[in-house]
């Protein structure tokens, strides 16, 4: 994997919201690479900046939010060694519109927002197909029906003419996925795609996403706060806290050999990590700071058991390599062997 070039490279991206009360630094220097055919998971607690990161990639950050710094590089379909910088595009322009849906498609966090209630799901999917493929309406309808079929919808010829509100939660989620893959994207961003649905339906949708990913060799950027879902879905995991990446690495290293104090504490605090039940769960002291009052230095320092006074509360740690493809932002690893080398 190391010699392979990334499909998408997010580099030191910063997204700030200037509000009357102050500036919310929602995403404050996030970097990661997504490779072809991989499921990359982004995990973190509510408000840590997962959705805003995703929106900055697609250039759909709503005002007053603004990308302050950083690059989002997407490899070209025909020349994988060449990259487009999505941050330099006009967010309403033709170029980025071709990327959205055609190269990178989105399954949004709010399932009801994906479809308009006044048009049939078929017409909306057909419109999306015609935007990205050079086909006429009749051909687009055919692709749409195929697409509905490939997401496991029974009677696609009939369902194509239904409205989103006529579908159950599980079927609606399938229709959203059908719309997302209809333009044959290389990267699918799924923002909490199963948070609003039941566990047995969630299992079906997760399986569907995995199957589609394998069949199409597509990459998936999978966003969730659920550690169980991430363990089962992702090959590579990015752990975020207060707008920054704390740790990233292969899924097995993150769950079995986490290095960052936040990742370690987070994993210890889930009930399924305990051998005995009914015992007190290890907790992370304090609470997530308000976005206007982000701590100086390492964002985790007020809650960190290892914080080094005069250092962690003053300076921002950079990323240190601690294992194969595993990186942490923590001063504890500043002097680890691999980094001195």
């Amino acid at each position, binding site marked *: 994997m190391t010699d392979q070039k990334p499909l998408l490279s997010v580099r030191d991206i910063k997204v700030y919201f200037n509000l009357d009360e102050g500036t919310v630094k929602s995403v404050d220097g996030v970097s990661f690479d997504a490779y072809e055919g991989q499921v990359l998971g982004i995990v973190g607690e509510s408000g840590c900046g997962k959705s805003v990161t995703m929106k900055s990639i697609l250039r759909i950050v709503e005002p007053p939010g603004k990308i302050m710094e950083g690059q989002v590089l997407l490899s070209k379909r025909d020349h994988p060694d060449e990259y487009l910088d999505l941050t330099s595009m006009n967010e309403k322009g033709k170029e980025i519109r071709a990327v959205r849906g055609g190269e990178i498609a989105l399954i949004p966090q709010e399932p009801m927002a994906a479809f308009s209630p006044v048009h049939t799901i078929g017409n909306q999917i057909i419109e999306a197909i015609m935007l990205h493929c050079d086909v006429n309406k009749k051909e687009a309808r055919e692709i749409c029906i195929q697409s509905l079929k490939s997401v496991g919808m029974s009677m696609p010829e009939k369902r194509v003419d239904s409205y989103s509100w006529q579908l159950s939660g599980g079927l609606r989620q399938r229709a959203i996925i059908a719309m997302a893959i209809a333009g044959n994207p290389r990267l699918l961003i799924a923002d909490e795609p199963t948070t609003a649905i039941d566990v*047995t339906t969630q*299992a079906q949708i997760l399986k569907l996403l995995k199957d589609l990913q394998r069949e199409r060799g597509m990459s998936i950027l999978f966003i969730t706060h659920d550690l169980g879902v991430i363990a089962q879905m992702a090959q590579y995991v990015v752990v975020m806290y207060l707008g920054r990446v704390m740790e990233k690495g292969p899924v097995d290293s993150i769950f079995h050999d986490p290095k960052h104090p936040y990742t370690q504490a987070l994993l210890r605090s889930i009930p399924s990590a305990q051998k005995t039940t009914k015992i007190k769960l290890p907790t*992370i002291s304090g609470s997530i700071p308000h976005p206007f009052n982000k701590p100086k230095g390492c964002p985790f320092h007020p809650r960190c058991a290892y914080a080094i006074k005069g250092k962690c509360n003053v300076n921002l740690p950079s990323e240190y390599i601690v294992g194969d493809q595993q990186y942490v932002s923590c001063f504890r690893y500043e002097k680890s062997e691999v980094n001195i080398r």
Partner: protein
Amino acid sequence: MSDITLNPKNIPAERLLHVSHLKKYFPITSGIFKKHVGDIKAVDDLNLYINEGETLGLVGESGCGKTTAARCILRAYEPTEGEILFRNKKQEYVDLAHMSDKDLRPLRTEMQMIFQDPFGSLNPRMNIFDIVSEPMLVNGIRNRKEREERVVDLLKKVGLRPEYMVRYPHSFSGGQRQRIGIARALALQPRLVVADEPVSALDVSVQAQVLNLLMELMEDMGLTYLFVAHDLSVVRHICDRVTVMYVGKIVETAPTEELYYNPRHPYTEALMAAVPIADPRLQQDRKGLPGEVPSPAKPPSGCYFHPRCSYCEDRCKTEVPELREISPNHWTACHRAEVLSLEGLKT
């Protein structure tokens, strides 16, 4: 032994609550004359019991009737049918299901609810003192000094600083708001606490703090919990016994470890297989259940689970299976429980 129905005479002494054949139907009406055209069978023949000092977990997918059942038990709803026997302070069993509001009044202090949504459940215009002390005022504790002392005590118990009394809900985080909700529920020293998804809306790191608090309070105050949740790992951690609901009915009840590792109902088996485990080395093979949860307005015939059950036989399509005790303390509502060998949680 095969029916869970009891009368006040043969109730085992340790029971605090004993619910049998509880039903709650919401009528579906149509037209300007509000003609009754059907029912949403939100709770449809529910049977469960809770012993004093224990925590019973109630699990199931959204819409299966957990909240409706909880609200019936606390008599926030009037049940359509059934019996809710509760042992009051005088150690007598009373049937809450058919009691008048007046008779319920003194009992209300003994049963309290903790809600799922820490944001919506607190009045934003009341400060913390008013929120926590309101139940005391309603129940006739007029002396402000006494109320203040008790609020200070309660806030300390739930891990909040007493100085916070004068603040309003908006200045607290989700976890802190949930603590305020817990303090309010405990204001009148209840014996039964119904917690409806108390940690579902909280982040992982905050969830652990609130779970610890609930476990501590149970020890300190000798509480009995009905713990409603859909997160099976949370339920496993704090519950003594667990009961599983599907489309308004209980399908299985057993001691926690027994239910998780030796399920005797196909739906429980499917639920265990569907829950994503936070360990990538335990890759789950997802055969998965086909279809979706049916609507309680139009439940299937026979066993409500039959259209999705891979063990379904002809009789399942017509005969409703009764909840029966298949081994001591293990109840299941499946015709084929004896002959099936089901898989539990993987370790």
